[in-house]
């Protein structure tokens, strides 16, 4: 065997030396400083994002990632004022509403140019609104009451609705104005194919590159932008999908990412200690509920639903799952939503009351079993399900938990027969108006394929309240109707109202100009953001 030794040893050494040399050669190519944050002025904003765009076309893609990009490239007539639920003029300079609430007249801004050439005018508004309506995809839900747009003159346009819709002005920020020239060039499909891969709007940034392979989208400043570039802004924005939370955190620490979107709560505690990093919490208009099957025994009995609501440990959920970073959800509306009724009293844990309610409903010791379906892999939902299971056990109700994929759950709750007895649901209203919660989750039209009313709640009275509040033109009237609706849904214990999770902005400390805008959940106003190391 000694013969064999001699043959390997020198060769082995050569290999080791070669490997070491190669290692140093390669590693010396990128020393720590050049690999991480580059020196010089910080002109590029790097966003480590969650998911690939749903669609570049603002009439199609409706996820937060797509909308962030739409917001950079395109502009609406009116937009949410950053940090508030108020709308302010953008491409329109002012607007007025007719007495019957059906006609919205917008005066338009002069001197606004499209990135691909051509001036913005009333025709661009008409073409863009018509296009969204005709395509009938993504954003078209915002135009369900849209009748037509009439060009009054080059800088005035009137939008007519089929029925009055009070929330309409808060929906207009979701309709982006595209270059009508492009729609004309690609008239056959209304530019559907073209706008899926290209972009042409009036916004501060234009599309430089969308690299699907590396899941990165690069935007560069549009020099002709009407608001100009005098202040502090980023010249370039890169939004790149980084799927793994730990990688996002590492990149933020190293300074390769300016802000990140995916992290665990544990990592935030550690990040908050880093002097170069900011972690800021904001209250949202999002609601986290347990949907109950109101259409089927035993949950069709309001007393059984209330019993569950009295059994749930709300404080534990907020402490354990959210480490305090959630607000208690009192009723169907989060407290940051306009028209939230401050006089409502939330359900609190009271097992004695829960047992009494069960007894009056004819279940003195519980004794029945409920099926709970929860989306696989979403920890907050799973923990909430487990808390519900443990609480129900204390009042004699057995809950079986089954984890399913989200598309499967969606299929199940589209059928009143297969909808689970209980399922956790996040409600993300698409605009800052109660209608975005009620129409999607509590209206009978939102049952089956229509929306997310998977608990099959709804009476003629509740539908009528939703419709009247939708159409009412006076603020007082809307407040009154929404108060009535909130009280009804809460007293009826339609769902179990758990929490309104807070949202965190996790960024390098020098990233300034961000403020959370409730209606723009998970969206980022690139143009308002800037770099300041002081």
């Amino acid at each position: 065997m000694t013969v064999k030794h001699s043959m390997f040893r020198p060769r082995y050494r050569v290999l080791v030396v070669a490997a070491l040399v190669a290692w140093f050669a390669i590693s010396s190519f990128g020393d720590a400083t050049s690999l991480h944050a580059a020196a010089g002025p910080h002109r590029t904003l790097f966003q480590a994002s969650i998911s690939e765009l749903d669609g570049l076309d603002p009439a199609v893609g409706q996820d937060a990632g797509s909308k962030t990009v739409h917001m950079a490239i395109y502009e609406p007539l009116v937009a949410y004022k950053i940090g508030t639920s108020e709308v302010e003029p953008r491409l329109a300079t002012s607007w007025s509403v007719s007495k019957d609430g059906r006609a919205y007249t917008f005066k338009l801004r002069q001197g606004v140019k499209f990135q691909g050439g051509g001036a913005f005018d009333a025709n661009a508004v008409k073409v863009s609104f018509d296009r969204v309506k005709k395509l009938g995809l993504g954003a078209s839900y915002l135009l369900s009451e849209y009748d037509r747009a009439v060009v009054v003159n080059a800088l005035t346009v009137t939008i007519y609705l089929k029925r009055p819709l009070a929330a309409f002005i808060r929906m207009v920020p979701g309709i982006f104005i595209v270059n009508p020239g492009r729609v004309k060039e690609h008239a056959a499909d209304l530019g559907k194919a073209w706008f899926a891969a290209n972009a042409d709007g009036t916004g501060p940034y234009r599309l430089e590159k969308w690299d699907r392979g590396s899941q990165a989208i690069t935007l560069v400043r549009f020099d002709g932008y009407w608001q100009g570039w005098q202040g502090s802004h980023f010249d370039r924005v890169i939004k790149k999908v980084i799927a793994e939370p730990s990688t996002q955190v590492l990149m933020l620490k190293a300074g390769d990412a300016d802000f990140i979107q995916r992290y665990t709560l544990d990592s935030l505690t550690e990040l908050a200690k880093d002097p170069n990093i900011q972690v800021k919490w904001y209250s949202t208009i999002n609601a986290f509920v347990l949907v109950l099957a109101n259409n089927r025994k035993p949950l069709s009995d309001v007393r059984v639903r209330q019993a569950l609501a009295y059994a749930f440990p709300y404080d534990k959920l907020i402490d354990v799952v959210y480490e305090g970073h959630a607000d208690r959800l009192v009723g169907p509306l989060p407290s940051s939503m306009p028209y939230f009724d401050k006089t409502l009293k939330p359900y609190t844990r009271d097992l004695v009351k829960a047992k009494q309610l069960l007894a009056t409903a004819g279940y003195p010791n519980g004794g029945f079993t409920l099926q709970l379906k929860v989306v696989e892999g979403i920890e907050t939902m799973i923990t909430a399900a487990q808390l519900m299971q443990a609480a129900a056990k204390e009042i004699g109700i057995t809950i079986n938990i089954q984890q399913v994929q989200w598309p499967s759950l969606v299929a199940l709750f589209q059928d009143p027969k297969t909808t689970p007895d209980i399922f956790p649901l996040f409600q993300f209203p698409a605009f800052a108006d109660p209608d975005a919660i009620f129409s999607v989750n509590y209206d009978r039209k939102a049952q089956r394929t229509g929306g997310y009313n998977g608990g099959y709640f709804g009476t003629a009275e509740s539908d009528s309240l939703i419709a009247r509040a939708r159409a009412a033109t006076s603020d007082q009237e809307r407040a009154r109707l929404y108060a009535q609706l909130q009280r009804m849904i809460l007293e009826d214990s339609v769902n179990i109202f758990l929490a309104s999770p807070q949202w965190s902005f996790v960024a390098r400390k020098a990233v300034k100009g961000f403020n959370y805008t409730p209606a723009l959940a998970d969206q980022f106003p690139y143009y308002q953001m800037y770099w300041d190391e002081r």
Partner: protein
Amino acid sequence: MRSGSISFSSRYTLRRILTAVLVLVGMSLITFVLVNVIPADPIKYAAGPNATAEIVANMRREWGMDRPLPEQYVRYVIRLVHGDLGVSIMSRRAVLDDLRDYFPATLELAIVAFLLTLLIGVSLGLFSAARGGGTDTIVPLAGVFGGAIPIFWLGIMLQLVFYLRLGWLPAGGRLGQDQVDALRVITGSMLLDAILQRQWSILFDALKHLILPAVALSLGPIAIIARIARASAREIFGQDFVRTAQAKGLSSRRVLWVHVLKPASIPILTTLGSQFGYMLSGSFLVETIFQWPGIGRYTILAITAVDFPAIMGATLLVSVTFLTVNFLVDMLYVWVDPRIKY
């Protein structure tokens, strides 16, 4: 039959091709049935909560999912024959374009990881078998450890050390962002594209991006191959013809590489083939940790979104890959052992 030449009867080749076609038809049918028996609604899922019934109906029509299932399958197969894999619900573009974007990334990573496995795994195994004694206990032991390290943990540790602490290597992706913009896509392999365009800094950047994922991907297979190679070489070492060769006074190197390696290589080849097949179907974990935009991640995302066209396309691609690798391995058998005939 002469040693070293590869020859197949044409009947055999024909049989292989026919089997492959049957396997693919079977795969497509099974996948189609499976994704359709799951009670899930990808269209409603993709449409989101705000979509009205009308929007959902429009989208269902757009993807042809308003048709009866048998009709959907027949339409799918007809399109498939024309090289059309349909449109992905997730990405809203042709599945073929998606696969064309994602597969080269997996292919490049798989080839590099495979070469690492081949070189390190086989050398370690043979080295261990040849040396015997104390050294020979190291490989099996290291093999057990190497095979037992969770790939996820390994990946994160590699990032922590080489990216965050030392700053030597990037955390993930295939190229630095500025380099991505500078490189024109020709083959889809960053290494090849960089060489073709004589972009040497990009080549180094691509290499740097490849190291960590390739190491994470190949560690398990290296451990397996080293153990197989060792076991198989030890068996050969004990045989008479090796002793004869040694007695003839041939150099140990020649004995090892000529007389031992070839007969020992059938089990090694079999395992290498299946490992390469798995690498080519994309490792979801490695691709996720290192932002590697490959087919594994694409498939998992497609599955969670119940994106029928994408799942079908990815499954077919993986099937074709496995069939091809198996065929290559079978060809190599003949080359290694001329007694094998097809």
